[in-house]
């Protein structure tokens, strides 16, 4: 039987005022599956996926990513091992402005995986080609549109050949007409069998791509359903209310 990629058990993170960013969150992501996390802002969904590669700590619970265990002690070496095998794409792209597109992508392969520059560049060009932006390889991030920058960010995350990809609202900072080019790129990755956890508000995209939808509010998991059930007949009142709100706005 295949080992699940992410197993979270009772993750809890509280802030000083007793507010809980995460409240007993448990979940499992199996290999090749796509988990979409939805919820109102402040519900803890970003915090949740940021714990998966150690960008956020938690106070209680256990996390197992790719067979590597981390707990509330937040062991730096374990986290480093996870980060080498997990890619992340951010809302604001977070490309390095002082490096060209190609250098952005080859930075980690050369410095973390100690690959040869020539090989790293070759693979980076392959990824850029896949993303349809190979003609921009020698430009700098600020010369690209938001959608292009986000596709570079995806290529950068893929350059380490990750076994798990995390997306933290990858289209929230984009112009409406630029959203689809990024969503299409993510869709293609899903078709290729990449394991992914995606925080998003894009209902249509979530319907197509996800194998499971996790709905969160105030740090709690409210509902865990397949997309068919969640989007047509959500089990919880809170989920239905949220989806109604989204419908009204789109």
């Amino acid at each position: 039987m295949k080992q699940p990629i992410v197993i979270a058990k009772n993750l809890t993170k509280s802030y000083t005022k007793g507010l809980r960013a995460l409240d007993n969150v448990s979940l499992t992501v199996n290999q090749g599956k796509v988990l979409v996390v939805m919820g109102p802002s402040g519900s803890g969904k970003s915090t949740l996926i940021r714990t998966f590669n150690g960008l956020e700590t938690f106070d209680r619970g256990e996390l197992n990513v790719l067979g590597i265990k981390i707990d509330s002690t937040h062991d730096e070496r374990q986290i480093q091992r996870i980060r080498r095998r997990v890619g992340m794409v951010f809302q604001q792209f977070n490309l390095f402005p002082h490096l060209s597109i190609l250098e952005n992508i080859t930075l980690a392969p050369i410095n973390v995986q100690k690959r040869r520059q020539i090989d790293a560049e070759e693979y980076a060009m392959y990824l850029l080609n896949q993303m349809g932006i190979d003609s921009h390889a020698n430009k700098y991030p600020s010369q690209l549109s938001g959608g292009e920058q986000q596709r570079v960010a995806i290529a950068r995350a893929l350059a380490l050949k990750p076994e798990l990809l995390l997306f933290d609202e990858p289209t929230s900072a984009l112009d409406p007409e630029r959203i689809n080019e990024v969503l299409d790129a993510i869709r293609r990755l899903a078709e290729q069998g990449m394991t992914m956890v995606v925080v998003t508000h894009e209902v249509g995209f979530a319907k197509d791509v996800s194998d499971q939808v996790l709905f969160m509010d105030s740090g709690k998991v409210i509902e865990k359903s397949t997309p068919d059930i969640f989007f047509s007949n959500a089990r919880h009142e809170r989920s239905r209310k949220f989806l109604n709100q989204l419908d009204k706005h789109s």
Partner: protein
Amino acid sequence: MLNFTLIKIFFKKLRKTLFSNSFNTIISLLLIVITYLFCLNTFKWLIYNANWEVITSNLPLYAFGSFPADERWRPAAWLISLLVLSLVTLFGPKWKWLHKNLLIAWASTIPLGLYLLYGGIGLSPIMSRHWGGLTLTILLTVCSSILSLPLGIILALCRQSSIPLIQKLSSIYIDVMRAIPLIAVLFFGQLLIPLFLPVGIEIDRVWRAIFAFTLFVSAYIAEDIRGGLQSIPNTQIEAANSLGLNQYQIIQLILIPQALRIALPALTNQSIGLFQNTSLMAILGLVELLGVGRSILANPEFIGEYIEVYVWLACVYWSVCTIMAVLARYLEKRMTINQANF
């Protein structure tokens, strides 16, 4: 025809801006008269009254100080190589290999300068007390800037450190250095360092001055770079973290390059200030550019010709500062060419 209309437009504009009513006319006329008298007197002095012999007959002194006459080609070669490199950097052909190697060329001017001045292999050795003039001024500036940059970076990083002891120590160092006047630090370098050193170890005066400048300027540079570091959004570190880069790689590959770029205008300021501050060494007995001027004025032959000497020195300082500023602007342009939004 065209010229005539242009002139007409010019005068029309002049009338509108300077002579629109009687009050403006009076003010304008007054200012014109004052400017005229000022210029007239200045030019009259520059052309008829000034005795430029104090400059022309001492040009080698201004450039090289008391460097032995038949070895003067050495500092001259260094100064010319710096000038040529500046011109090549600014106006040279845009060949790719040239631009790639410019940095190496600039870095190698320092060992080249030291070799040419000190002598050694193949050249007769010359003691640093014979160095002087513009050569010494530039040497002090270049060596101090180069040494204070890494020290400043280290201090800035220490000040951001999560280890309280290191953070406190570097804060104290920076605050103390910024609270002491430069001249005091230079006195310290010249008079007290020899006392503190164990017997038998001696650092010559030029290096003592360079170290004192370095200690002083690095505190200011540290603050400039800290400003740069603080303006880098935290998301950059998160992105680097998520790629598995370790702390040192993040500092070296992500933070330092961006901080230097942001701090570049401030750093230019520091090095131009440093260039001018080297003139303080004239008080402490080094015969750099200002020191040469003072010693020439002490010569009975040229007694009383202060204005000529100081006007000339001002021109030399101004020219070198201008070259530095233009070079820095070029560097800024090259570095920010691809990053409109940061």
